Each structure stands twice: as structure tokens, then as C-alpha cells.
């Protein structure tokens, strides 16, 4: 049996390796992102030459100036790819990590913007990732913008969203048109079901393919060496996702 988390990690890995996108030689992963971290490890363990900077790694943490070094690295243009999520994400790829209701989140307060209002501008590529796929999360227009998906020409910006991966599907993002496009459906999902669960409008082909299953080789990497790499930082995640598989 393949866990959804494993499928998502493999789908993210395929996006990282997308030959049409600028190269991902150095990827950073921020706080509490076990699935993106697993995806990055998968790319590395498949043998691709990629440097991973994991902000929350405890032993051997590569940063000697804390999170400032991550943002400086990104400012220097050395980080090729980052992952962002959002309490709300809308059809123009605007992110809301702040909350809903009156500012600063009188109805529901999310933790806060973290570095999104910088990273989203300064990375050539961002992959959006949010497991929950519901009209509550994927909205027509976010209540508050912590980081905008698009910027006018007089604002320095290196890139924006490449794609959005959810628990149901993969969307690609067309920055020129400012619209998402349904790219593939995870097993058990239908185009109509995704449409109903999505609060924003988007493009789709008449035939939407399924998200490919992880290969046996990928699953072996995830459950073996990648689990070992991630145990220290994400023990709860590893126990929940990988150990269940090992037991199954």
C-alpha cells in the first residue's frame, strides 16, 4: 500500500525535476515541511546533483547565521527552489498565511507569513503545497495577501509559483495568464470532484491524466535511506508514514 504522503513526495520530486523549468541545483526547505523535504531527498537519492538546505535540521545544520542566512542565500540568487503553503491559496497564486476575518485574523488566525513575502519573489521557482484541498483553502480570492502571486514590472521578482500540489491533484501555474491548470489527478479523484472542491476557476484539458504511481525503487528509497535522513527532524511524520508502511 502506498501512503498519500509518499505519492505527494513523488509528485513533488517530478516537479522539481521538470526539464522545462530552470535547474534546481540548490533547494531550501523551511519549517515543518516533511513531505517537501522527502521530495528533495528523493531527488538527491536518485542521484541528481542537488544541494539541500534544511533550515530545521538540528545536527549538522548548514547555517551558522540561522534563518537570516537562508534569506541572504536567497537574496544572492543561490536558492533555485522553495516550497510554500498557505491557509488560503487563490486562483492568482496569492498566498494567505495570516488569517481570515478582520486583520490580523479575527475569524481564524494562521501562524503568520514566515518568510513568504520575500521568498516568493526571490526564488526563480516556488512549488506550492497544501495537502487539504477544499473550497475553504483553495479560494477565489484570499482574505489577506501575505505574498502575492504576481507583481507589476517595477517590482523586482525572480519567479513565482511553478505548480500547486494538493491531496487531490497537481495544478501547474501559468504566470503570463495568472491562472492554474489542472495537470494530473491522484488516484480516486475525478475532474468534476476537483472542480467542486476548488474555490477558484482554472483551466483543464478534456482528458486529465492520473498522477503516476511511485515506482518500487522510489518507495524503497523513501522507506529506507530517506526515512533515516528525516528521523531526527520529523520523528512523528516518519513514524506515522513510513513505519506504518514497514509494518504493512
Amino acid at each position, binding site marked *: 500500500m502506498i501512503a498519500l504522503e509518499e505519492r505527494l513526495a513523488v509528485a513533488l520530486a517530478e516537479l522539481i525535476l521538470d526539464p522545462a523549468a530552470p535547474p534546481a541545483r540548490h533547494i531550501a526547505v523551511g*519549517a*515543518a515541511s516533511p513531505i517537501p523535504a522527502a521530495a528533495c531527498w528523493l531527488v538527491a537519492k536518485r542521484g541528481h546533483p542537488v544541494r539541500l538546505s534544511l*533550515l*530545521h535540521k*538540528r*545536527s549538522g*545544520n548548514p*547555517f*551558522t*547565521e*540561522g*534563518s*537570516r*542566512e537562508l*534569506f*541572504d542565500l536567497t*537574496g544572492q540568487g543561490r536558492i533555485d527552489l522553495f516550497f510554500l503553503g498557505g491557509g488560503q491559496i487563490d486562483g492568482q497564486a496569492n498566498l494567505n*498565511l*495570516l*488569517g481570515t476575518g478582520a*486583520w*490580523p*485574523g*479575527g475569524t481564524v*488566525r*494562521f*501562524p*503568520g*507569513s*514566515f*518568510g*513568504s*513575502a*520575500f*521568498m*516568493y*519573489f*526571490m526564488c526563480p521557482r516556488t512549488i506550492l503545497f497544501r495537502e487539504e484541498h477544499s473550497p475553504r483553502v483553495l479560494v477565489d480570492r484570499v482574505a*489577506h*495577501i*501575505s*505574498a*502575492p502571486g*504576481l*507583481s507589476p*514590472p*517595477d*517590482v*523586482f521578482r525572480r519567479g513565482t509559483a511553478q505548480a500547486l500540489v494538493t491531496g487531490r491533484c497537481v495544478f501547474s501555474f501559468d504566470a503570463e495568464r495568472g491562472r492554474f491548470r489542472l495537470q494530473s489527478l491522484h488516484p480516486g479523484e475525478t475532474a468534476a470532484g476537483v472542480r467542486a472542491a476548488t474555490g477558484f476557476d482554472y483551466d483543464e484539458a478534456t482528458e486529465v491524466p492520473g498522477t503516476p504511481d511511485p515506482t518500487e525503487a522510489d518507495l524503497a528509497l523513501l522507506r529506507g535511506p530517506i526515512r533515516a535522513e528525516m528521523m531526527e527532524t*520529523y*520523528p*512523528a*511524520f516518519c513514524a506515522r508514514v513510513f513505519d506504518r508502511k514497514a509494518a504493512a
Partner: protein
Amino acid sequence: MITIEAMAASVPDGAMLALPPDNSLPSVALAKALVRRGVRNLRLLGVPVSGFATDLLIGAGCVAEVQSSAVSLGEAGFAPRFSAAIRAGSIVMRDATCPAIHAMLQAAEKGVPFMPLRGLIGSDILLHRPDWKIVQNPLSDVPDRIVLLPALSPDIAAFHAVMADRDGNVWLGRRRECATLAHASRRVLVTVERFFDGNLLEDERLAPGTISGTYVEAVALAERGAHPVALLDEYSFDAEYVATYARAAQTQAGFDDWCAREVFGRAVAA
């Protein structure tokens, strides 16, 4: 060296107190001592985000304002007393974004009135930060808007280090971002695991992870003073302790019980 209770007593009501996040050596021991002292109206600064100690101080009614880029308990989820206080409108929240907090502190560190930062434009954070200003880049010939952030000097910075020597030098290893915080702050209070007999700056292996006593006002001994947060290779994150807290603090009554046991109870027992 002073006692941690004396250190807490030196923090006045209303002070802007800067704390590093849960992965960068906050002094949870000092936060607990501040709760015991009953400090009021603190203006907390997350450098650049806030975690366990901030939620604890909010729950205990010590906080008037939080400036931070996020408040969270990490894997244990949203910070419950922070979320409740925002819903109740009982604290003022000044949202920022991580590199902006770093840049404002670096401006203070350098003694310049502001620092520019890329990004930000188009974020609603800016609408709520009248102190952050968009200007045309004065060095550019083409339209190029950029944000200027004012220098920020916290009244007090507090963090937990591994050791201190008699000259007030403190060693905190690779967590050198605390040095910038120390440079930018008016007063620096440090709790440590243990005393170092010698001068940390005289040792070539220890000097790079040392913050000079120039910046440090006071040091207090507090064994396991970062707990439940990790301290380098000394001890690891106590996820169960934080999860227990997160469950208890879903309600104010649950928080109060937890606090009586974990903050006041231990102090009595010690």
C-alpha cells in the same frame, strides 16, 4: 552571575523583549521566571518568528503586543494562547516577514536609520506597517520600487547559551544569529547551562561561537534553560512536553493548571 529571579526582576513592565524562535535558543527558563515575577505589558519581538515561550507569556497575561513573522508551536500546531488572544483582541499583533525582522535588527546593528529589502510589495503586511516605506530605488534609472525598513533596537534581548565566562562572554555555537540580536539590542540577558572557567575569546576553537561580553548585561545559571526546546548537541527537543502543553492550553483554565504545575510548582519544589 545573577539569579534568574533577579534577572526577571530587571525586566520592566512594558519592555520590548526580543526572543529567538524555538530552533534558535530562546531562554524558556527566563520566560517562566517572568511569569512568576508577574511582568505586564511586554512587547514581544520574534526573531524572526515566535514559539513556545511567547505562547506561555501570552497565556500568563504578560503581553500587550507581539511583533513577529509567525507564532507557532511547530509540529504541535498553532499556538493556542496566541490564537485565543488574537480572537479576543487582547493583544496587538504587528505582522512582519522573517527577513524584514533580520534587516531591521541589522540596521540597528550598523547604526543606520534604515535598510532596504526586496519582496514585500503587494503583501497586505505592508498596509499595516506605516513604518515600512516604499520608495523608488535612488540608485536605479528605471522604475524600481523597494521597501525601506527602519532600524529596530529592542529594549532587551534574551536567549539561552551553553556557557558563560567571568568576562560575560557567552558561547552558543553555530547559533550566531543571536549575535546580531545582541548587537542591535539595548540590554542583553543570557541564561546558560554552566560556567566556563577561562576566557572563551582566548580559545581559538570556542571564540567563533562566542558573543563578546561587550554586549551582555547579565548572565544567570539555568540548567536545561532552553527546555523543552533543543540546545545544540546538549539536549534535544521535548516534543511530548510541548504536545502536552498544546493540549492543555486549548483553554485558559487548562493553561492555568499547566502553568501552576510547570511554572510555579517547580519553582516551589526547587
